[in-house]
């Protein structure tokens, strides 16, 4: 009897990993095919980003760092679209740039989806928004962009010299940036250091949920104004915009897979504890 019970607890701890993987994949497929539309609560971090975006006046310049790689496209792209939508609604001018190597191609993929918004708002490339491309050097480059954007870029992504672009004629350094936002999976702190600490430029960050804890202390101290928490934050932003998109779709996925992972954790630990108890 005891031996039989023992084996159950041990078995519980040795479910083949293939089964776990298939279950987790299923937990993503099902909600994507059968969306449920769960309510989304807005976190204070997203709220402060939204409020801050709403203070943009027509003509203000916002720097957007397209620093995600294809890996986090699934939530950074909707996040960027949602933020840019709100900025366009406020009439702000957008300067896109990248300090990550996959950035330029990510920008083009994002633009394919965002172009209709620009067209609707009557935004013209070069006058209302511009893309400058990639700059090497990470934090050194950020410092350069803050102090003089022309040291980092001489031409835009498509080869036009900056001085021939109408929008860029009034954009030189930190004094001309109303706020910046970085969509990054790299080092969000470096943006805060170079823009906020030095020049008090309003700094927003959109990073993966896994990195949010590491920069929460900076949000609490006000060094970061708006903090978009990965896919969850992107979904909240879409809700605030009243334009539900890809990020909202992801929300259902979180429900299923998080509960599943919770169950794995539970099974593993129940098996472990019971086995230990039986052993005694």
């Amino acid at each position, binding site marked *: 009897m005891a031996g039989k019970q023992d084996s159950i607890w041990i078995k519980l701890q040795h479910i083949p990993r293939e089964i776990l993987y298939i279950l987790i994949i299923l937990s*993503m*497929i099902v909600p994507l095919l059968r969306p449920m539309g769960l309510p989304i609560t807005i976190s204070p971090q997203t709220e402060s980003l939204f409020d801050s975006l709403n203070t943009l006046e027509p003509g203000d310049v916002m720097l957007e760092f397209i620093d995600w790689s294809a890996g986090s496209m699934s939530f950074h792209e909707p996040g960027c679209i949602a933020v840019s939508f709100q900025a366009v609604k406020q009439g702000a001018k957008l300067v896109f740039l990248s300090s990550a190597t996959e950035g330029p191609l990510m920008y083009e993929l994002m633009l394919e989806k965002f172009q209709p918004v620009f067209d609707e708002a009557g935004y013209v490339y070069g006058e209302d928004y511009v893309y400058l491309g*990639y700059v090497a050097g990470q934090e050194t480059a950020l*410092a350069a962009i803050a102090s003089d954007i022309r040291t980092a870029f001489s031409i835009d992504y498509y080869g036009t010299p900056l001085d021939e672009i109408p929008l860029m004629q009034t954009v030189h350094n930190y004094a001309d940036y109303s706020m910046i936002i970085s969509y990054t999976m790299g080092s969000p702190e470096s943006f805060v250091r170079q823009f906020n600490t030095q020049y008090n430029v309003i700094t927003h960050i959109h990073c993966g949920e896994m990195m949010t*804890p590491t920069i929460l202390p900076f949000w609490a101290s006000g060094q970061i104004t708006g903090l978009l928490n990965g*896919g969850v934050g992107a979904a909240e932003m879409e809700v605030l915009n009243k334009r539900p998109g890809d990020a909202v779709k992801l929300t259902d996925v*979180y429900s299923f897979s998080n509960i599943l992972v919770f169950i794995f954790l539970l099974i593993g630990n129940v098996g472990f504890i019971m086995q230990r108890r039986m052993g005694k």
Partner: protein
Amino acid sequence: MISTDPSIWVMAFFTIAITSLAFRDNPLAKFAEHTFLAATAGNLVTMAWRNVYNIGLQPLMKGSVIMLVPILFGVALYTRYSKEYMWVSRYPTAMMVGIGTGVTVRAFVEFQFIQQIIDTFKPLNSFNNIFFVATVIICLTYFIYSLTPKSQALEKSMSYVTRLGRYLMMVAFGASMANTVITRVGQYAGRIMFLLYDWLGLG
């Protein structure tokens, strides 16, 4: 309808090949990983070249001779592959490290020391505030490593505080860990979306 676009099929193949790595180490995954490695390096060179050309070579050709200096420094980096001339690459490295360190360190005092301390000044009038201040201090003592001759005698009692600090950090790490799951799920769901919608044409 399942896609008929060959490039979608290539994309689906790579997606599945990389995923298969989690199940078992296999040649397809290895093939896909090598492709990834090479393509990333190629992309890096492409992007770096644009920078070298736009910031360095073009101004040089337009007559700003001073750009010759950083270009020579950049080229000198590659001497590290020769045993004899490796020391030349120290010049650009020293330059790069000097600029990088200066740019970072100058901000740290305010950014990650004083500002963070200021924000911890909380009136001790609620449980949350007291808990907050206490947690910061207890966890901070975990990161004090050196012992003076005097405090060596106190090591044992100090170790209780460090252990408490470790517990408090473990709670924070547990929370971060759960957040990692949601990030990875969100990222991978993007691939599932691609496979379901773009490749298989469902939904």
